[in-house]
């Protein structure tokens, strides 16, 4: 059961959005976020929304699964909404009750904030749904490679991320095995006070850590045997290359940012 979890929730597919270069998606996402934060009027929000809706439509990712992903965030959304609703000052008072004052400006602002967060999260979901973790790390490595000049270990970081992603399912399986072994000998993880339950986890964590270190040692030897010597002189099988759709995506992203900034400069 633990084995079935999906990582990064990647939905494999063949749509143009899936096939975009991961770097394109990352850069366009950054542009979109900038546009979203510059946007001040309904018109610019509508533009951002249009951009998002078209991207989702092209990606063929069902809207349902994006909505499902939002569930854990409901609390944050409600919190943001309520805070903005109550603590925004304004002239048009709608409700005045005890110390609570709700103004028209407050309502508008609350709606704006909630919509902004929703649109922000939908876009990041679209990125992780259409990009496999490995190409995402590849894209990040390539985008951050100028930092190598500043001695930031970009290759090492992306290698670490890759290995971490690779070993998460393996370690989960291992945890499952250790838990079963402990349960078979009478360990109880489900009942008792919080402290008891936390204590019951120690006999799981200790063997898990020991085995993780042993794995790390073996993996390091195996990597050395395969001539790994760090990022220097290393080539890639899959080269990242911008294609025609990447140009479209960049153009659309640039248009969006330009339009929203223009609108904002007119005070809209």
């Amino acid at each position, binding site marked *: 059961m633990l*084995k079935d979890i999906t990582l990064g929730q990647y939905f494999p597919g063949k749509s143009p959005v899936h096939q975009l270069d991961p770097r394109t998606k990352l850069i366009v996402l950054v542009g979109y976020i900038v546009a979203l934060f510059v946007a001040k009027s309904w018109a610019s929000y509508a533009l951002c929304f249009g951009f998002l809706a078209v991207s989702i439509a092209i990606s063929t990712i069902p809207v349902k699964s994006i909505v499902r992903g939002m569930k854990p965030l409901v609390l944050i959304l409600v919190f943001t909404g309520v805070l903005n609703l109550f603590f925004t000052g304004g002239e048009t008072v709608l409700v005045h009750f005890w110390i609570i004052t709700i103004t028209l400006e407050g309502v508008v602002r609350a709606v704006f904030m909630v919509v902004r967060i929703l649109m922000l999260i939908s876009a990041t979901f679209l990125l992780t749904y259409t990009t*496999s*973790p*490995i190409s995402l790390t590849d894209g990040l490595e390539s985008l951050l490679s100028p930092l190598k000049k500043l001695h930031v270990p970009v290759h090492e970081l992306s290698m670490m991320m*890759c*290995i971490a*992603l*690779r070993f998460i*399912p*393996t370690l989960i*399986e291992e945890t499952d095995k250790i838990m079963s072994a402990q349960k078979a000998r009478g360990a109880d993880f489900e009942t008792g006070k919080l402290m008891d339950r936390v204590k019951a986890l120690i006999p799981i964590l200790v063997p898990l850590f020991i085995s993780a270190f042993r*794995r790390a040692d*073996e*993996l390091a*030897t*195996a*990597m*050395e*045997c*395969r*001539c*790994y*010597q760090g990022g220097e*002189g*290393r*080539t*890639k*099988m*899959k*080269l990242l290359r911008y294609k025609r759709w990447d140009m479209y995506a960049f153009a659309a992203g640039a248009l969006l940012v330009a339009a929203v900034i223009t609108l904002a400069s007119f005070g809209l």
Partner: protein
Amino acid sequence: MEAMRVEHLSYSYPGVDDTPGVSVFEDLSLTVEQGSFVAVLGGNGCGKSTLAKQFNAILLPCGGKVYVCGMDTADEEKLISIRRSVGMVFQNPDNQIVANVVEEDVAFGPENLGIASPAIRSRVDQALKQVGMYEYREHAPHLLSGGQKQRVAIAGVIAMAPKCIVFDEPTAMLDPQGRREVLQTIHTLNREKGITVVLITHHMEEAAQAQRVVVLHKGNIAADGTPAQVFSQVALLHEIGLAAPETVELCYALNEAGFALPLDRLDSEECGQALYDWVKA
């Protein structure tokens, strides 16, 4: 031509703090011919895995020399060419797969060698076809069976085009089905690509299929020869805590009870024939 030559090798694991190190080899000499299939047998702690790690300079000799394709493993400048020539496959397939897509993992070795991208692609495809895992190239390794994972690990090694491959108990963690798959792959590599194979194992049946069997005991060579020659020395094998293949064991037990059967029948077919002949005579 010899693929590997071990000359008067001595090696001991260094001790921690003040404890003395553990000596594994004192004076071991061994040569492996190019293109041959050598099985190394031995009980636990006899130095099998230590020997394997000497072959691609993961461990370096304390005394004596190890030559791989004519290169001295102690020569640091040759390190990369040595590791290119000798691939290693380990016991636990999980701990040698680096990437989370099969083909990316197979590409890991060639990528480290700095090969151009189209050449890596063709090497990866070829290696995956060789081990019969081409259809799984886009799968995640953790969803494969043990035997499949081990074949991916083997593909990762052959994508580097080594002359020799050292297998360190590659089937120890696999079920019978996975063992068969992996052994078949190893034999094909040896036969069709002429890759020198050193197979470290403690399954007698696996060793019986090799061209040559070397038995290690306490860091020394206890027996060396064709499988038939080695396994017929049943008394010696028993003495060092090993067993011969079942067919030989059967003939040996019958001989103790008064039969006079040959001890070099490793195949159950041949063994049956020998029994039949004896009973008839």
